[in-house]
């Protein structure tokens, strides 16, 4: 299918992208290098990509004192459940909103879109969840309040709108109801956008710690634990508090970098499995307009 011979254009592209890789990968290599570098040495100059004085101290600092097993499991669970629930609901809603013949199509769409730009603020949300709904320290507080992002719904909706109508109509003639059409016809065709949306939700779920902080400190997630480690490594800028402190062998900067690596690693490991859905196109051979 693909042409095998490479033209000048391919080489130009390659050079371009190698240049691109070099400049975009720099920050990450920098983080990686600092995380493996002696914190004291790091203070000399923070910009380097190969550890000058190799050490595992920063990682040891993170892992020795804290029990990460439960928070890690909880983070995985939260990410898996949150993504699963999120993708299913997002695609369901996206499908409904793509149906121009649905009576409430426009009003619902507007209702949803507006919420992307308005927010009552942290305090009303906090009171709602903690006081009215009593969801504090309950696992579902991680899932339900943020289960749908309108942004993703719109993204998926515009993908669905780009699909050929023929299949839907064929299914309808076969007597399938709307639920079956969504499930049997739309979902399988949405693989690329499902991959994207899953990635967005999963990254969002994996990275969030404010939800734990506000609503569920008794069942902490990995990110929250990491965040706490980072904050406690921060030398207090208050002179009095600092005066009470003793020799700090870790520097907040180095700990921050190691935390970044630990927090990002799972995403980096999972991503290649998702990648096949982004790369290359697909053939909608069965569909003819």
């Amino acid at each position, binding site marked *: 299918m693909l042409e095998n011979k490479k033209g000048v254009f391919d080489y130009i592209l390659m050079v371009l992208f190698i240049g691109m890789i070099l400049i975009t990968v720099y920050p990450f290599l920098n983080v990686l290098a600092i995380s493996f570098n002696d914190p004291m040495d790091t203070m000399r100059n923070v910009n380097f990509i190969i550890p000058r004085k190799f050490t595992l101290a920063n990682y040891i600092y993170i892992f020795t004192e804290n029990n990460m097993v439960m928070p890690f499991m909880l983070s995985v669970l939260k990410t898996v459940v949150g993504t699963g629930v999120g993708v299913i609901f997002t695609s369901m809603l996206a499908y409904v909103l793509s149906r121009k013949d649905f009576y409430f199509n426009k009003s619902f769409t507007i209702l949803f879109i507006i919420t992307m730009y308005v927010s009552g603020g942290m305090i009303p949300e906090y009171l709602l969840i903690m006081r009215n709904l009593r969801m504090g320290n309950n*696992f*579902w507080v991680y899932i339900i309040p943020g289960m749908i992002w309108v942004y993703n719904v719109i993204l998926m909706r515009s993908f669905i709108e780009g699909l050929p109508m023929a299949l839907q109509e064929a299914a309808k003639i076969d007597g399938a109801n709307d639920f079956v059409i969504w499930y049997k016809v739309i979902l399988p065709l949405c693989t690329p956008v499902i991959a994207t949306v899953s990635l967005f939700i999963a990254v969002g779920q994996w990275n969030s710690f404010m939800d734990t902080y506000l609503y569920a400190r008794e069942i902490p997630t990995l990110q929250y634990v990491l965040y706490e480690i980072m904050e406690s490594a921060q030398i207090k800028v208050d002179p009095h508090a600092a005066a*009470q402190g003793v020799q700090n062998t870790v520097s907040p900067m180095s700990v921050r970098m190691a935390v970044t690596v630990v927090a990002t690693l799972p995403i980096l490991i999972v991503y290649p499995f998702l990648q096949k859905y982004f790369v290359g196109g697909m053939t909608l051979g069965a569909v003819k307009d």
Partner: protein
Amino acid sequence: MKGKRIGAMVLAASLTAGILSGCSAKEKSQIGEDGVLELEFYNADGEEDPWTNPVAQAITDATGVRLKIDYPVAAQDMKVALMIAEQNFPDLIYAKGDAASLIDAGALLDMTDLIEQYGPNIKKMYGDEFDKLKYSEEDPSIYQLSSYAMGGTVYKHSGTAQIQWAVLKENDYKVPRTLDELETMIKAYMKAHPTTESGLSTIGFTLSAADWHWMITLGNPAGYIADGQPDNGQWIIGEDFHAMYKFRSDAEREYFRWLNRMYNEGILDPEFATQTHEDYIAKIASGRVVALFDTDWDYQDAEKVLKADGKLDKTYAPLPVSISEDVKCPSLMSQGLVTGQGVGITTACKYPVEAIKFLDFLCSDEGQILTQWGIEGINYFVDENGKRYRTQEEIDYNNSDKDYQKKTGVGFYSYPFPTYGDGVTDTTGNTYTKASKDAVIAEYDAEQKAACEAWSVELLTDIFPQPSEFAIPEYPPVWAYIKPAELDDIGNKLDEVAWSGLITCVIGKPEQFDANFDSMIASLESIGMSRAEEILTELIMEKVALVEN
């Protein structure tokens, strides 16, 4: 098929989640089966602490109270605001800068009667300055104790102007006392040593002014050096208690004029306003910065590197520099008790008597020695003369393990709870704190020892005007005040203008300096500087009246 798999996964996950989510509403502040009362304590500067270390245990044994400690995590934390919104308060609270909202919300308990009845040690500790704890003339309640030390003296200088030991040595330890003398010394050194041993060009001095650090390195030194004023935040308080936004003082204009000249002559690092704080630290750590205008806690990381690299002579000597000979360097001046920030009891506390007794114990001699020194026979010993001392082993443990305080509890609870200051002695003649003159001298490094010898003094701080030369102001330092919202608001705006205004003045052409400075003053005036000064003056008068009555 795929759908089924996802469905199964979600189901499995939600079952597990169901197990995890089993949570019951817990009654707070209750007496446990062991007869110990658990009080919830929110500490704005706290960290995780299960209350299991030996000192914590000893406190519980003595008081029958255990603390359940809560603390903020995010920097832009709104924990106190959320508490108020939810009307859900802990029993004890150290709100740091957020006390105003708690008091306004009626969440803090007036401790006056409780202290009268159950707090003899609290009264004893605060002595003459007890009245400073009162909130205001209108509402003379005591809502918080002080989180800062009561009484005492200063053995260590935290620094304003400083210069590398190497420079002092080349000048036979002559101490520069004015900016001019400092300038001459820096220039001479730069001329003699245009580069460091490793080939980096020498920098006269640098500042960290790209973010909030500007207040520490650009703002604060101006007050000390030019006005000879102690730390009252961004304010200068005159003899008649009249407050003035400090950057408009004529003396400071001259200080910034000097900075402007230094900038244009290339003595002040041209990157001072744009570099990040990390770059600032890295520069100092390389040993190329001759002089500093900073406070020790702000640049101590750099000194650690210098020491590790064996460049002890590139660490810094604090100097009693002021703008001219008639201005006395106020660094050692005592400002008296700091109030406005401290531990309080909330109205939600069901056991206020137990709570105040707990706080009173911490103020007692027994409590103070316990929190400061630890447990006798383990953390410290008493010699045949009745003198408290720590073994070298313990001191090394303290210095080498960053978690020493947390693990042993020694010194861990001295802040934000009330403490006596360094040098205050108990009935046995021992100091309450571990820091004593001898201990400080014992910790001096080679450069510091050599300097003491050259100056023939015991302490490095002896070259400064001594605390006894200054009268203690009748009002507590302004920076910790619970300020009215209007003052806070104008104050923030003034600082915004001053930050960019001062930088513009410093990096401008010398002939434009006055024009730049005048235009900054005009902007300050236009956003209510006089109004803010009025409010603060009134507030200070009130504080003075509180003590006088």
